[in-house]
């Protein structure tokens, strides 16, 4: 690279595409590097008007609270304007053997004692007739009673239990858009990109829009969704399909109204296994979002629609005026995400089936990493790109492993979909090695190599033991001190669960109160 190019400051950032990815990225960057006239970083977002949101990204991870706080919105405004509700984990129904009693939770609150010790071996040794999550975490009780994770007196973004949100993706983008423009000084235009122009060295120099605007920038962030305008169409970075590991490739989605204004709002994402995939069921304040993600290799569109209707009808939710929407899912991610002076965030970078809601958390992590890695000059960008690509390739691989884990541990035999999901050749080596290791060792921090894992050892414990996986640790690795600690901690869980059940309001009650009174910042 020519020396002048090396010393070219990185100050102008162009985000291509709005939506959840574009606006979270713009918001994180603009709040991290506040506008300082001509001096500082400038963030511009260009989005096309006729780009309906995909609208499946309705589940989040608890990281979203720190992200929203960083961007500078209030929790009250967010909850009110995005019809958001509290999400405290996932509830997996019929994933293990498909029987009526088959259900377990993956709560957001860590297992008890997790900060100090790995107590999972002692639950395995003596489960006392309780499921893993119920023994080790008070939050399953909170979820099963559809309670909120906090009280009206609890300050914004804090909770008595760890939580994230379910949100209306169609409202979330516009909500962030307004904040970014009004409060963070993000420049915004509605237009379409017709041409991408490069420098001699291959960097993007500028993009030309339909209305003739020429937008130059130092860093281009591709948030153009599935169309992948820059990373895919312009740079031709290959897409790595994960279809051979994760079979889901289609979905039917539908919105279900509540029967009454005061109907309870579930505190967890319900994921109910079906013959060829699973049904998501998410409660917002105004409606439920329900959908069947399935594998076209095992089920026709009509068959899937019928199965979804059966799910709804069993709950009395099937009516004639429902409109079902079909969505294609192409599981996989780019071979690299940051190439030259362009980095992809959101669907342009990759997408996996919505199990465990990894889409929005990956956007947050990407935005945060870009903000942290942002080099002063073009010369530093190559290293930033390398670090980013290494981290995110690792993260996508770990998510694939973690999602696959849910299928590998199933004992369902009612369809080829479930049987084939356990075929050895469909399981990534890294996951096979993990499963082998966890035969005599309960998942713990050191099993994963990164500082910030999307799914920590706690999540692995919840899924493994929720699904009846057996670990047999050597007796000489266990001791009475930890055994007693585990007993104490488990009885604390039971007491705390009881105390919270008596003091926490219902999810719906609290959300109505927030609508009316708001939450305090402190």
């Amino acid at each position: 690279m020519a020396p002048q190019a090396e010393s070219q400051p990185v100050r102008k950032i162009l985000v291509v595409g709005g939506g959840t990815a574009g606006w979270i990225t713009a918001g994180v960057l603009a709040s991290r590097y506040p506008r300082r006239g001509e001096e500082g970083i400038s963030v511009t977002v260009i989005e096309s008007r006729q780009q309906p949101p995909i609208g499946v990204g309705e589940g989040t991870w608890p990281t979203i609270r720190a992200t929203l706080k960083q961007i500078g919105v209030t929790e009250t405004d967010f909850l009110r304007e995005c019809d958001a509700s509290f999400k405290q984990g996932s509830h997996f129904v019929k994933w293990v053997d498909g029987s009526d009693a088959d259900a377990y939770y993956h709560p957001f609150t860590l297992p008890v004692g997790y900060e100090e010790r790995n107590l999972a071996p002692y639950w395995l040794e003596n489960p006392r007739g309780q499921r893993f999550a119920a023994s080790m975490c008070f939050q399953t009780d909170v979820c099963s009673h559809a309670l909120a994770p906090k009280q009206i007196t609890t300050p914004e973004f804090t909770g008595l239990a760890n939580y994230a949100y379910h949100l209306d993706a169609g409202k979330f983008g516009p909500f962030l858009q307004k904040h970014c423009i009004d409060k963070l000084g993000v420049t915004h235009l509605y237009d379409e990109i017709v041409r991408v122009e490069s420098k001699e060295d291959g960097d993007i120099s500028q993009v030309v829009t339909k209305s003739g605007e020429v937008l130059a920038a130092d860093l281009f962030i591709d948030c153009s969704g599935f169309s992948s305008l820059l990373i895919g169409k312009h740079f031709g970075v290959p897409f790595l399909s994960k279809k051979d590991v994760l079979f889901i490739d289609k979905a039917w989605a539908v919105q279900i109204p509540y029967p009454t204004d005061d109907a309870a709002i579930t505190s967890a994402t319900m994921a109910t296994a079906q013959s060829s995939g699973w049904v998501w069921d998410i409660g917002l304040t105004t409606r439920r979002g329900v959908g069947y993600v399935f594998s076209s290799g095992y089920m026709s569109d009509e068959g899937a629609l019928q199965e979804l209707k059966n799910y709804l009808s069993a709950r009395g939710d099937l009516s004639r005026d429902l409109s079902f929407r079909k969505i294609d899912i192409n599981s996989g991610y780019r071979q690299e995400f940051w190439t030259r002076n362009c980095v992809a965030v959101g669907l342009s970078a990759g997408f996996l089936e919505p199990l465990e809601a990894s889409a929005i958390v990956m956007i947050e992590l990407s935005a945060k990493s870009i903000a942290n890695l942002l080099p002063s000059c073009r010369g530093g960008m190559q290293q930033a790109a390398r670090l980013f690509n290494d981290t995110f390739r690792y993260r996508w691989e770990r998510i694939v492993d973690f999602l696959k884990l849910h299928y590998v541990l199933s004992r369902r035999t009612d369809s080829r979909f479930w049987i084939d999901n356990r075929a050895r050749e469909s399981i990534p080596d890294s996951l096979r090695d993990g499963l082998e290791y966890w035969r005599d060792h309960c998942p713990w921090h050191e099993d994963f190599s990164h500082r910030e894992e999307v799914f920590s050892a706690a999540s692995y414990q919840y899924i493994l033991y929720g699904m009846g996986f057996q670990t047999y640790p050597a007796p000489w690795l266990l001791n009475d001190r930890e055994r007693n600690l585990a007993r104490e901690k488990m009885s604390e869980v039971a007491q705390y669960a009881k105390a919270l059940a008596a003091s926490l309001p219902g999810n719906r009650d609290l959300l109505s109160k927030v609508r009316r009174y708001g939450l305090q910042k402190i």
Partner: protein
Amino acid sequence: MVNLVVLSSQTHRNVRIAATLSSSGDAAVNAVSVIPREFARLLAHYPIFFTKSPETGQFEPAALLGFEHHENLFLMDGRWDAAYVPLQIQRQPFSLIPRHGGAEGKEAALDVALDLDSPHIQTQQGERLFLNDGQPSKFLQSITSMLSALVSGSTEAYAFTGRLAELNLIEPVRIDIEFVNGSETKLQGLYWIAAAGLKALPAAQLAELRDREFLEWMYLQMASLAHLSALVARKNRLLSGATAARP
């Protein structure tokens, strides 16, 4: 328990209200919500903080009366040990409730209600509510005006705390107290005025606070905090008295 019924000159013609305050009754609270219009009188005796309403999460001014749940250090042998009693205590066992069948959405009409389970309610001694001809007594008239002062005062209080919260002029406070007998307590859930924030407030907002009387209330409130040590002294006297009485 509370057993509220709408007051009626027919049904309650012979009811009398005794001034007795019992340590197990309504007055057995360690904080009582107060309104800005009584700050000047409260200032003589009580530290005034903010607490959050458990119903709405909104801040409301409250006078601190004790350090433990149900501990009211102003309650001494059935009487109130201070010259001024907060209106929320004085009005007991009466309250205002929305009129049954009132129009939804409109400013609801309110009825005076009486807690039939209150120990204040007597038939032999105490103040009469109604004269023989069914007209309200002077006592009842004073209760009624107290209740309406509380209603308008609470609206004012929420406007006051709401604006202060918007301006980030309320901050949480943690107070650790050690009593004379060595026991300790941590006061939680209390908030007060962010003095540093007030000092740094732009002139325009300061003027707004002054014009709405909020500034005056804030200073009264800040001055009242001097009574926190008096409240600790009250508890210490009680503790050392109790210790001395032991053989």
